[in-house]
């Protein structure tokens, strides 16, 4: 038994030149991580292991010290995280947008809305399905924020408000199956291969701004984190090269992210 | 290890008395045949003597410690228990258990396979043999360890004449070679052929134990008389 444990530990000692980064599914599904990772590993000469999880889980992994850094898009959660001391700071890296997807026939007629709040007001009264992430992810919290701004409790929609507790991609699959409206980040949508009859019905409002930030786990809380390597990664992510790569990343001929680190 | 003394032995299961009280002494020579009607307790007696049964009352004593005596005994069950292996693997099993080297065990087993006429079936799966062949294997397997005491529970009950003859011949040779044999049987003819002395059981009670001639000429009870006459004993 002791021998087995030793073998296991040996295998893991060999992984000293690697860090673990928890990222949210919406970041990963855009394909940007697959695009950036080879450049990162080539330039920095260490491996970055990505754990693609929901925002809640990413935060939890950070708190537990099971990862060396997290990349998420939920500002209130991030600020609390820093306040609690798990990270010394949050570093903005880039943003993209949320969009409202819906059936091509647009039964709720949101396409012609003047702004986001009007679109959501129409959704609240229309007789259509709406799929919600339901998992307190960054995307879900954005959705909640919008409902609150129009002072509407989405549960009032009843059975047509479908709360799924899934990642973005799986939630889109469900929206396709139910011919429903859904709030999604644009990058995931563009890269998603099962679009069904859904199209982007609304985009472009300021409120749909989706900020991604990098939070390195503090060594004070978890002494084993590979802070030096994480620092190098952070430097790289805010570098000119990263800026160039991120801004030039296209999906279906559309620019998906905008670099905004400073 | 002889004599084996059985004093006031009783065996009951769930307050039903199967056997006893029995008082008996077994000595080391010859073949003792246990006779009695079905349900008279023959199997229970044999299993008790071999140590397979827990005694509700009384004592069983060899002249050596019981654990030592256990190493010198073998038992052949009424329905042969074959290991799911080949004939030769069944035969070597008791020797392997005693940590005898495999090559020596195999040589012994081959000799025994010949004695029981199965030298051409040694690699056959034992459970696939005929009833008579399986019982022959069981007897050979029991004798391969050269036990001082061999128990057999109706060993030839469902066998044809040829198989019966083969096994009886093996038992006679074994007895001559110094193995004490206690066997139960239904077959009066077999008892007459093989027995030196006879134990007669009726409803779990030992009615007599003595030389064969004595039992045959002067049966100890009405039940015994009925038994000898071939009547149904109630």
């Amino acid at each position, binding site marked *: 038994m002791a021998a087995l444990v030793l073998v296991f*530990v040996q*295998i893991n000692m060999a992984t000293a030149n690697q860090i673990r980064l928890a990222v949210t599914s919406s970041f990963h599904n855009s394909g940007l991580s697959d695009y950036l990772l080879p450049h990162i590993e080539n330039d920095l000469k260490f491996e970055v292991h990505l754990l693609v999880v929901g925002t809640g889980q990413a935060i939890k992994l950070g708190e537990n010290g099971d990862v060396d850094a997290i990349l998420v898009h939920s500002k209130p959660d991030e600020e609390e995280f820093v306040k609690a001391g798990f990270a010394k700071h949050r570093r903005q890296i880039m943003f993209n947008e949320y969009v409202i997807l819906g059936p091509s026939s647009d039964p709720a007629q949101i396409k012609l809305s003047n702004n986001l709040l009007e679109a959501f007001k129409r959704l609240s009264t229309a007789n259509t399905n709406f799929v919600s992430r339901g998992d307190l992810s960054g995307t879900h919290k954005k959705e909640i924020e919008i409902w609150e701004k129009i002072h509407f409790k989405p549960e009032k929609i009843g059975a047509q408000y479908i709360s799924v507790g899934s990642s973005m991609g799986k939630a889109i699959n469900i929206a396709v199956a139910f011919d429903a409206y859904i709030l999604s980040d644009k990058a995931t949508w563009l890269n998603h*291969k099962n*679009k069904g009859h859904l199209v982007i019905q609304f985009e472009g409002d300021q409120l749909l701004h989706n900020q991604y930030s990098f939070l390195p786990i503090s060594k004070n809380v978890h002494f084993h984190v590979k802070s030096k390597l994480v620092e190098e990664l952070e430097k790289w992510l805010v570098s000119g090269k990263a800026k160039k790569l991120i801004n030039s990343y296209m999906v279906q001929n559309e620019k998906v992210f905008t670099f905004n680190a400073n | 290890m002889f004599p084996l003394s059985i004093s006031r032995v009783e065996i009951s299961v769930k307050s039903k008395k199967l056997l006893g009280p029995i008082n008996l002494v077994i000595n080391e020579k010859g073949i003792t045949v246990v006779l009695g009607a079905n349900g008279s307790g023959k199997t229970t007696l044999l299993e008790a003597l*071999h140590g*397979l049964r827990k005694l509700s009352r009384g004592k069983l004593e060899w002249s050596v410690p019981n654990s030592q005596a256990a190493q010198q005994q073998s038992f052949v069950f009424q329905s042969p228990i074959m*290991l799911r292996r080949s004939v030769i693997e069944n035969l070597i099993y008791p020797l392997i258990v005693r940590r005898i080297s495999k090559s020596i065990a195999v040589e012994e087993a081959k000799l025994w396979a010949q004695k029981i006429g199965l030298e051409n079936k040694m690699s056959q799966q034992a459970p696939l043999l005929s009833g008579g062949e399986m019982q022959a294997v069981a007897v050979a397997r029991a004798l391969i360890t050269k036990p001082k005491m061999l128990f057999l529970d109706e060993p030839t009950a469902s066998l044809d004449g040829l198989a019966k003859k083969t096994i009886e011949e093996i038992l006679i040779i074994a007895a001559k070679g110094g193995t004490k044999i206690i066997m139960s049987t239904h077959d009066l003819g077999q008892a007459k052929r093989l027995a030196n002395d006879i134990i007669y059981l009726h409803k779990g009670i030992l009615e007599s134990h003595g030389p064969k001639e004595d039992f045959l000429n002067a049966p100890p009870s009405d039940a015994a008389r009925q038994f000898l006459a071939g009547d149904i004993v109630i």
Partner: protein
Amino acid sequence: MNEILQGLVQAFWLVISLDTELIAISLRSLYVTLTALLISTLVAFPLAALIVVTRFRFRRVVIAILNALMGLPPVVVGLLVYIIFSRSGPLGVLGLLYTTSAMIIAQTVIITPLIASVAHQSMRELWADYRDLLISINTSKPQRIGTLMWDSKRALITACLAGFGRGIGEVGAIMIVGGNIDNATRVLTTAISLETSRGDFSLALALGFVLISLALSVSFATHWFGKTERGGLW
């Protein structure tokens, strides 16, 4: 329907072209599940045999618990293993989380009750057959355990296949403790989950077909090498 056909075609091309990523995750799937299976058998089979041949007070309760553990939801096992091996957990210092080692541990926990139960069931039946013989031959407990396991090997192989099937198709636990990390802990099932969430159903199906073929191949190979369905009773 169209997607199923597309999936089949894609699976075919992936295999023919010896797609490196496919090979890597397939080998990793096999590595994780086969290692877990190996460890499980080392624990489960002797344990099952031990329970069969030992009389102890809480035996029935232990057997009932063993059978009940077969119903352990894998995802719950994953969560428990995560909590234990998390950096904030008791065994966090080992640094095993998000490695194939953690996945092996989780799968071992999931598979062991299953194969122990199946093994126990058939060895119990065999023991009912062998018991009197093995006691009569004065076998020691380890010898009994060895004999039961060896003579039950066909059933034990079936138990292994059941365990393998359970492990190779498992996704919940290994997703949590392994993290589905590209080039590190991604296996067939977690890759299928990922492609599904990307909406790439035909790739997901293709991987699924590869997984099914893998499982079938293992099963066929096992039966072929074990000559399980040829001749004989078992």
